[in-house]
C-alpha cells in the first residue's frame, strides 16, 4: 500500500506522517517547497514539492497511490485573508479530488469540528458525528467554517459521482507540537492568571484532541470498511474550560503540592459533561490516549517556562 500525505508539516499531518512510520505503508508527501526542511523522516519517505493548484505536481504525487490523507487545509491565523484560505481549502481540495478521481482507494480529509452548527447550550449535548453543519461565530471563524464546509461538500459530491470513497475527520481543538490555539491559551493564563472570564466565554467547553489521537483515528478509518463515506467527530475524553487548563497548569508546575488555588473555580465552571461524543470512532474501537494534562505539559515544556516565580535562596547566600 502506498499512501500520500498532504500538509505533512501541519498540526495533524506531521502526526499522521509519524504514525505511518510505524506501519508497513510506503509513504509519499506533497509539501510546499518552502516547508520541505521541516518534514520529518525525510530519509524514509518520498517527497514531492508543489502546491495543490499545481496539476503536474499532483499527478506526480498521486502516481500509484492507494490512500490519500488530505491534511493540507488551513485554519486561519487572524491575519489570513479569507480569499487565501478559500484558495487552499476549497480550490486546493477541488484540484486534489479531480486528480484522485477513480485512482485511489480512500480519500481521508482532515476537516474540523468548526463545521458543526453552534452547540454551546448543554441542552444540545452531546454533539454527535453527523450533527448539522453551519458556519458560525466571528467573521474569521465563520470564514473558516464556510471554507471547510465547502471543501467537505466537494468531497461528498465527488463520492456521489463515484470518483472516490472518503472518510472525513472533524477534530476539535488540536493539541501537540503545533497547537497555536492552546499555546495562546497557556500564554494568556501565564500573563494574566486572574482575569480569565473573557477567555472562558470565548473558548467555552473544550475537548482537545491530541495530534497522535487524530493520527490514530486517520489511520484507523483509512482502511476500515465501515468508515467508507462516513464523517467522524474526533474529540478527547476530558471536557475542560480555560479554568481547568489553569488548574492543570498549576498541577504541572507544582508537582507534589495539593493546595491547588484554582481547583475550586475550575470545578465550579465545569459540569463534567462531555460536549462531544465521537460515537462512530468509539464503535470502531478508537480511544483517545493523550490526556489534557499531558497536552499542557508538552506546551509548557516547549515554552521553556520555569515553574518557580519566586526563588528560595539557601540561608548562607542571603546573609551578606
Amino acid at each position: 500500500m502506498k499512501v500520500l500525505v498532504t500538509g505533512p508539516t501541519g498540526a495533524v499531518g506531521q502526526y499522521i506522517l509519524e504514525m505511518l512510520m510505524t506501519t508497513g505503508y510506503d509513504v509519499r508527501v506533497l509539501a510546499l517547497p518552502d516547508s520541505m526542511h521541516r518534514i520529518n523522516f525525510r530519509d524514509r519517505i518520498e517527497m514531492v514539492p508543489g502546491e495543490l493548484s499545481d496539476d503536474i505536481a499532483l499527478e506526480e504525487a498521486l502516481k500509484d497511490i492507494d490512500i490519500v490523507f488530505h491534511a493540507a487545509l488551513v485554519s486561519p491565523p487572524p491575519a489570513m485573508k479569507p480569499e487565501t484560505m478559500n484558495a487552499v481549502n476549497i480550490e486546493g481540495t477541488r484540484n486534489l479530488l479531480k486528480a484522485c478521481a477513480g485512482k485511489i482507494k480512500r480519500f481521508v480529509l482532515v476537516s474540523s469540528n468548526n463545521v458543526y452548527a453552534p452547540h454551546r447550550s448543554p441542552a444540545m449535548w452531546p454533539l454527535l458525528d453527523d450533527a448539522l453543519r453551519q458556519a458560525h461565530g466571528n467573521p474569521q471563524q465563520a470564514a473558516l467554517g464556510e471554507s471547510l464546509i465547502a471543501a467537505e461538500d466537494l468531497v461528498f459530491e465527488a463520492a456521489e459521482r463515484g470518483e472516490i470513497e472518503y472518510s472525513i475527520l472533524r477534530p476539535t481543538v488540536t493539541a501537540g507540537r503545533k497547537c497555536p490555539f492552546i499555546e495562546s491559551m497557556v500564554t494568556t493564563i501565564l500573563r494574566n492568571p486572574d482575569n480569565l472570564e473573557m477567555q472562558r466565554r470565548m473558548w467555552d467547553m473544550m475537548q482537545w484532541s491530541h495530534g497522535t489521537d487524530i493520527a490514530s483515528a486517520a489511520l484507523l478509518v483509512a482502511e476500515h470498511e465501515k468508515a467508507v463515506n462516513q464523517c467522524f467527530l474526533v474529540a478527547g475524553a476530558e471536557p475542560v474550560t480555560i479554568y481547568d487548563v489553569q488548574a492543570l497548569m498549576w498541577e504541572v508546575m507544582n508537582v507534589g503540592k495539593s493546595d491547588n488555588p484554582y481547583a475550586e473555580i475550575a470545578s465550579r465552571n465545569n459540569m463534567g459533561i462531555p460536549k462531544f461524543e465521537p460515537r462512530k470512532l468509539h464503535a470502531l474501537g478508537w480511544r483517545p490516549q493523550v490526556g489534557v494534562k499531558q497536552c499542557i505539559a508538552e506546551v509548557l515544556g516547549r515554552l521553556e517556562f520555569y515553574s518557580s516565580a519566586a526563588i528560595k535562596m539557601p540561608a548562607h547566600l542571603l546573609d551578606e
Partner: protein
Amino acid sequence: MRALVSDADGLIGKRIISRLLAAKWEVTGVTDAQTEAPEGAKFRAWPKKPGSFGASLKDVDVVYVTELAGDADLEEKQEHLSGLIRASAKAGVGRLVLLSSAEIYDPTALRNLTLYETGPFAAEGTGGLRCRVAAALEGDLREIPGDMERVALRVPMVLAPDSSGAITLVRGILDDGAVPADTPRFQTIDADELADACVIAGTSDQASGHAINLAGAVSVPTYCIVEEIHRLAEVFTDQHNGEVRIRPEHPISSPILAAGKAAQILGFTPKKSQWVNIAELVQAVVHQKRADGALPAIVPIMPAALMAVEKREKPLAGKVAVVTGATFGIGRASALLLSRLGAKVVGIARTEDAGAALVDELKREAKFTEGEFIAADLSSQKTIRDLAEALCADYPKIDILVNNAGAAYAAHELTEDGVEKSFALNTLAPFMLTQLLAEPLKSAGASRIVSVSSGAHENAPIDLSDLHSAKSYMPFDAYGKSKSGLVMFTYCLASQLNGTGVSIHAVDPSTVRTEIAARNGLEEKLSKDLGPQEQQREQTRIDRERMQMISPEEAASYVVNLAMAPDYEGENGLYLSKGEIARSADATYDEATAWKLWDECAKLTGVS
C-alpha cells in the same frame, strides 16, 4: 486468577467484571437475568437451593458480592447471598469482598456525626431492608468458620447514570419536589470508582479482615443538591442560553463517612466530584424525558435555507426565481443558493461574460438546477421595460424576485433618463421592475419579493426636495438615501399587497466582502507618496477591515432564507437585519413621506 461476581449484570457487578476481564481474569457472573455475558466471561443463574454452587466456586480466588450497592431486590436475594458466603468459605475460596451499606450504622449518628468503621451501629432488627440485610451478611461474614480472607466495604448511595435508584431519586426531586426525607447531608460514591476500589480490595494484601468505609470526598447539605438538580435541569433544557452556567458556591458539611481507612489500606481516594455525578444523572433524566415526550425534543435552530442545503432537500423545485445583479457578490451567491434549493434562477446583470459563467456553473455542477441569464442594465428605464416584457412572456409565474442589484458611484452622474444613478439603480429600478412583473408574481400565488437594503440607509433619510442629490453629492450618502427609498417603497408596496398572497420584505445583510465599495470609481488607491512599508501597513489595515466583514455566501443565506422560509408565511413588509427581524431607520416609517416618494417615483418612471 479466577473470580465469581454476584449481580453480574447489576450496577457494580458489571463494572467489576469488565475491569477483571481487562486484567485477564477468568470470571463467572451470577445473575438470573437473561443478559448475555460479556466476551470472555460466563454467566450462571442462582442455584435453586441457596448456596449450592457446585463447581462454580472451585479454585476461585475472589468472590464479589455486590447486590447491596446496586438496584437488586434484596428481600428476594438475602438467603441466596448468605448461602453464597457460606458456600465460598466451604469451597476454599481465597477471599470474599462484600459490598455492604452505610445504612448499617445508627440512623441518628448518620444524620449528625462522622462515622468511623467502629460504629455506632443500628440496633438489631431496626432500620430499613438494606440496613437489616447488610447487618445479616456482615454477621455471616464475621461468624462463618474457615480461613477465607474477608473484606467488607461500606458504601453510601452509589451514583451513575445507569443506576435506576439514583435516576428515580433525581426524577422525584424534579417532578414532585420530593426531598429525600431524613437525610440532611448527601455523600455518595461514583459507581466506576467504587468498582475500582472493589478490584483493589480483592487483591490488596492489607485489606483482609477489614471493614472499610468508601465514600466520595465531599459531603454537602441535601438542600444544595436539590437546588443544584433544579439548576442543572434548567441548563439541560434551555437550548437558547449557552452563556453563564457556573455552579453557585455551596456550603460543605462534615462528612458522613470517614474515608481515611480506605486511603490508608486500599490506597484509594475518590477523585470524581459529586457534582459531576449529579450533572450526569440530571442529563440522563432530561434525555429520558425527551424520549418519553415529557420534554420537547431539541429542534436545531438553523435558517430553513441552510437546513435544506444541509439535508440536500430541494424545497424550491419547480419554482422560478429572478435575481438582479446576479453575477457578483451577494446576487451571485443568492442565485447559486436558490438554484441549489431547486429553483430555476433567471439572473439579471449587465455583463454577458459573467452571466455566461453563471449559467455554465449552474449547468456543470450536479447540485445546481439549470438557470438562465438575461443581460440588462437596470439604470435604464427602457431596458427595464424590455426586460419585464421578456420575463412576462417567458415566465407566466415568478415565485421569487430578489431586487439585489445596487451600486454606489464615486461621482454625481445622471442616467439617460435624467435620474441620479444611485437613485435610479437602487430605488427606481426595483420600483419599476417589481410592478411590471406584477402579473407573473401574482399568478405564482404565495410569491415573495426581497429588497436587498443596507445599513447605510440608517443615517441617510430620503430628501424629497433633492432626489437627484443635485445640491451636494457624497457617494455613500446618496447610496444610503437611495436604500432608504428602497425600504420605503418596500413598506408601501407591502401595504398594498395584503390579501394578494404576494409579500415583499427588505433585508440588511450587514457589511459584506464584496466589491461594492471598490467599483464605479470608488477604488481605494494607496497613495503613491507612501513608502513601501507604509503602503504595506495600509494594505494590512484594509485587509483587516475586510476580515471583519461577512462573506457573500452568508449574506445570501439571509436573503434567500427571507425569500423562502416558512417562518415568514403570512408576513408582509418585514425588515430583517441579517437573519433577525428588526426595525429600519425611524424615518422610513413616515408614511406621508413614503407615499410622496411613491408619487415621485411614479412620475419619474411612468409606472404606478
